[in-house]
């Protein structure tokens, strides 16, 4: 592993951790992306009425977090060529596999109540047993699957 990619991985990881802990310190919320997306799109009454401030409403905070993520992606899309950064490819697998993969990711994160961020960082970061177990399971299964498919 080259130093530059090591530094990028470490620096990027620090930014992710910082973002997640700031959301906890300021808003008392877990930065779990699957949960945030699910709440934003499919919030039920029970969820939006929970907590005193949520009722005052307007757009739920989850939409603001999502907007931040998308905004970053927009900026990247605008500047990556000038900066000599790579464009990512998303078609490593066929279209049916993309659909199956997406369905499994969504269904799995919903049933398991978390993904890489919610369980892998926020959950393990506070030593939650559920998150430690879930992360071990999804990384192990993902590694076996990737070996088999790629």
């Amino acid at each position: 592993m080259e130093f530059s990619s090591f530094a990028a991985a470490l620096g990027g990881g620090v930014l992710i951790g910082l973002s997640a802990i700031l959301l906890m310190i300021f808003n008392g919320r877990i930065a779990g992306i699957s949960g945030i997306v699910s709440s934003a799109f499919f919030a039920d009454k029970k969820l939006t009425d929970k907590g005193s401030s949520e009722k005052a409403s307007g757009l739920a905070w989850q939409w603001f977090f999502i907007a931040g993520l998308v905004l970053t992606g927009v900026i990247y899309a605008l500047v990556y060529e000038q900066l000599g950064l790579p464009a990512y490819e998303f078609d490593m697998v066929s279209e049916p596999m993309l659909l199956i993969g997406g369905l499994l990711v969504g269904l799995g994160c919903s049933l398991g109540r978390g993904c890489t961020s919610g369980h892998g960082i926020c959950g393990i970061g506070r030593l939650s047993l559920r998150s430690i177990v879930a992360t071990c399971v999804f990384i192990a299964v993902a590694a076996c699957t990737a070996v088999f498919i790629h």
Partner: protein
Amino acid sequence: MKTSSIKKTSFIKSKVVALLCGVLFGTGLLVSGLADPAKVIGFLDVSRISNGTWDPSLMVVMTGALAVYMSLFYLVVKPNIRAGRAPVCDTQYHFPEKKTLDTHLILGAGLFGLGWGIVGICPGPAIVNIATLDMSLGLFVVAMLFGLYLGKLIKSTQPDMVKAG
């Protein structure tokens, strides 16, 4: 009147915080390479260890993120909770109610791992990359949203079957 205006200010602040945290999180995903499916598969496909092309950087990303999150959680958040203090912009901390293992957790994590291993995209990178307007990614995102909705339906109709722990 005064308390309600304070509440309203912190409510607006919490949305600004959420937006900025989203930007920071997305930047982290892009800088670290986690937003690149090829890089993720390069990590997950551990058979590449044998020919020296395995990319361990995802482990470095998680280590960096966890080091920051865990240390600040135990230095700042935990003492705050113990002292009964609320977060800066909210009246309480929000943690999951479930504490024990159950079948939904294990099954869900397994299904997520299966999907992640096939495509190399997890929810964060899926959202960050929407701006590419890539059709393949679009298919993935639509299917993921459907999956999230399906999971929500299942959770509401089927309570966890067996307590595993």
